[in-house]
């Protein structure tokens, strides 16, 4: 009789083989993608050879933050499919993927933020179309399906996707001013929140069929954040209580080193993306629920990564428990998420070291943005640097663009606030003298 481990490992190998074959076939179907692929491979190889970061340095990009932001949001807009969903990725081998409900959901706040910042109507329109598409996918239970749209797994409700989509619905509700539409969005968001609260375990975690690999994960703190956002709008104590319960459960996994245990991904290492999810969800939920314990826990983990980044001028793509080591590539999405976390911690604590680290991280990420190339490449955030790194190999991913756009918008807002505050302070002290 086969053990569950060997069966799971066989499934993993099969999935992997199928993926490799599909991607190879994709390149045969569209050989024109060979040139951009080789050009990216060559440019990353060159950069890796000549780049020698050290304690005293950081990469300074020539591209302005506003231009980088426009370029990244441009990538997202071009990845939106006719139905309103946003593709998960653009692969050098297989082109654009199908729409990804989870990412489409949490890209909505990014699009609205960009629309507000720049007055870009296209971004607002895209957010509205994305909302409509998501509403069409909602299950009668209130849940949303997992995986890519149109795949088999799509039939299964997913806790994480529902949580991430909930973020988008709550924001769409805040931004929508037509009464009937507004009421419908809130009703759907509440249904999603009710479903999440109903299937939550007594300890605050989510396990079972609707959880990825059937087990509880601490990076589901992102779901708790979405519930906290919903609670702020629905004023329903059940949503707030569910967010708090998960927050408590996550905090019970915080190690003395700052490491948040329980990422629990079988068959994958702990990519920085998931570590950053756990930190970001805990922090944002803590801010919304006014929980100092959660903010402190997130700050502790974020500070460990900040020190690593400042000392080595980069973060590893994966980390072992306790941040003890990991794989030698950059998970760019995780980097952008950490930039968001550091910027928010600067906003909350006023500690300029967080702002300093985020500015440097954004410089590094801006430097790696393709400024020219075909649709799907230009303005895209690669899964890994170098592009052949283990996380989302050979792909530009929509959630990477989302987090970088968030980081760049936060940078703009907070640096402006800081400089204004500094000027006001100077003027005030001049008056006093």
């Amino acid at each position: 009789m086969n053990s569950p481990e060997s069966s799971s490992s066989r499934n993993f190998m099969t999935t992997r083989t199928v993926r490799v074959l599909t991607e190879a076939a994709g390149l045969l179907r569209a050989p024109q993608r060979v040139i951009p692929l080789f050009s990216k491979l060559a440019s990353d190889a060159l950069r890796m050879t000549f780049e020698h970061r050290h304690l005293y340095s950081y990469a300074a990009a020539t591209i302005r933050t506003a231009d980088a932001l426009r370029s990244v949001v441009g990538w997202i807009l071009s990845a939106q499919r006719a139905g309103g969903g946003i593709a998960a990725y653009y692969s050098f081998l297989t082109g654009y993927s199908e729409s990804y409900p989870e990412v489409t959901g949490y890209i909505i706040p990014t699009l609205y933020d960009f629309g507000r910042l720049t007055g870009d109507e296209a971004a607002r329109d895209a957010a509205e179309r994305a909302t409509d598409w998501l509403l069409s996918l909602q299950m009668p239970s209130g849940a949303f399906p997992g995986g890519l749209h149109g795949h088999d797994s799509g039939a299964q409700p997913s806790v994480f996707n529902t949580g991430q989509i909930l973020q988008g619905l709550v924001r769409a509700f805040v931004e929508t001013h037509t009464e009937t539409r507004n009421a419908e969005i809130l009703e759907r968001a509440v249904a999603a929140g009710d479903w999440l609260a109903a299937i939550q375990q007594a300890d605050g975690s989510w396990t079972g069929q609707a959880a990825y690999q059937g087990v509880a994960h601490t990076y589901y703190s992102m779901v708790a954040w979405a519930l906290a956002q919903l609670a702020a709008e629905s004023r329903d104590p059940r949503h707030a209580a569910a967010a708090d319960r998960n927050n408590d459960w996550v905090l019970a996994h915080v190690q003395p080193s700052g490491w948040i245990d329980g990422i629990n991904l079988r068959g994958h290492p702990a990519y920085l993306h998931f570590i950053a999810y756990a930190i970001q969800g805990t922090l944002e939920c803590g801010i919304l629920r006014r929980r100092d314990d959660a903010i402190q826990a997130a700050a502790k983990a974020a500070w460990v990564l900040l020190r690593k980044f400042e000392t080595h001028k980069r973060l590893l793509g994966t980390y072992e428990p306790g941040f003890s080591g990991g794989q030698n590539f950059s998970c760019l999405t995780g980097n952008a998420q950490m930039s968001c976390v550091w910027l928010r911690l600067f906003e909350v604590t006023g500690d300029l070291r967080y702002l300093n680290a985020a500015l440097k991280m954004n410089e590094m990420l801006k430097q790696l943005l393709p400024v020219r190339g075909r649709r799907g490449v230009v303005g895209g955030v690669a899964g890994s640097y170098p592009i052949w790194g283990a996380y989302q190999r050979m792909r530009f991913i929509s959630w990477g663009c989302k987090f970088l756009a968030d980081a760049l918008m936060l940078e703009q807002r907070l640096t402006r606030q800081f400089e204004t505050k500094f000027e006001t302070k100077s003027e005030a002290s001049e008056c006093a003298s």
Partner: protein
Amino acid sequence: MRVVILCSSPYSETGCAVTARLAQLGYVPVGALTLASWDRSTLLRKLGQWGLHDSLHYAVAKLVPGKSTLQKQMLNPYLERALRHGDGIFRGLREVARAYGFPVVTCGDQNSPRAVAQLKQWSPDLAIFTGGNILRDEVLKVPRLGILNSHLALLPEIRGMSSPEWSLLCGVPLGITIHFMDSGIDTGPIVLRREFARAADCDALADLRNRMIAEGIELIAEAVAGLDLGTITAIPQADREKDCQFFVMHEQLKAVATRRLKEGRLKNDRLKNDRLKNDRLNPVTGACDGSGGHDG
């Protein structure tokens, strides 16, 4: 007192100035241990720190002095007092060594077994760190009293890198601390701690840093003499565990720090003008009559 100098390069201006200043005061080192000047990591670090233009300027000034003026041969003009030697200046550690008669030993890593063995052979009472590697325990425990470092900020408030800039941005008074090094970053016992009073004379961060380095050298000399005579005792830092470490500052924040520095200079000019006005009003006492400037 047997003193050893630890240096980041034989051409390090600061290392050279510290050594020369101590020798002028009678503390001729028993030896100097320096990293190689053409070491790849040193070159990359300097390029990162100074940029290509300043690095080239420095290399030319040190290696091809030609007929350029003394000022042009120095990256930091405030080190002239320490570096001046006859009609010229010391351009490298080996020139100081020739003038005062002590050995200079080059190594690839100050923590290497060879470097530790050399240090032990000199059996120093005290070492002065002017740059190089992050020192490991093996090296730290060789000198009888310890290894001194000049840190360009008040400790324990601001530890780590870009310390004058962070002092400006965080509203901590500018200052210099001479401290013994330990396994932490700027966490060792404090020997001297002094506020830097001349920030208002500075018009740029580089100028501020240069003046602070020069003042730091004078403080090191004072600390060495004090430790030798037994008039100074090191005091452990109260907040050793507190995380006050800062890192290299991003240019965008440096621009704000520069504005703060200029702001202080402006205020100081205004203060001076007001004082001048008051002095004219009351030439006997020279005191402010209440309408004069205060720092706010």
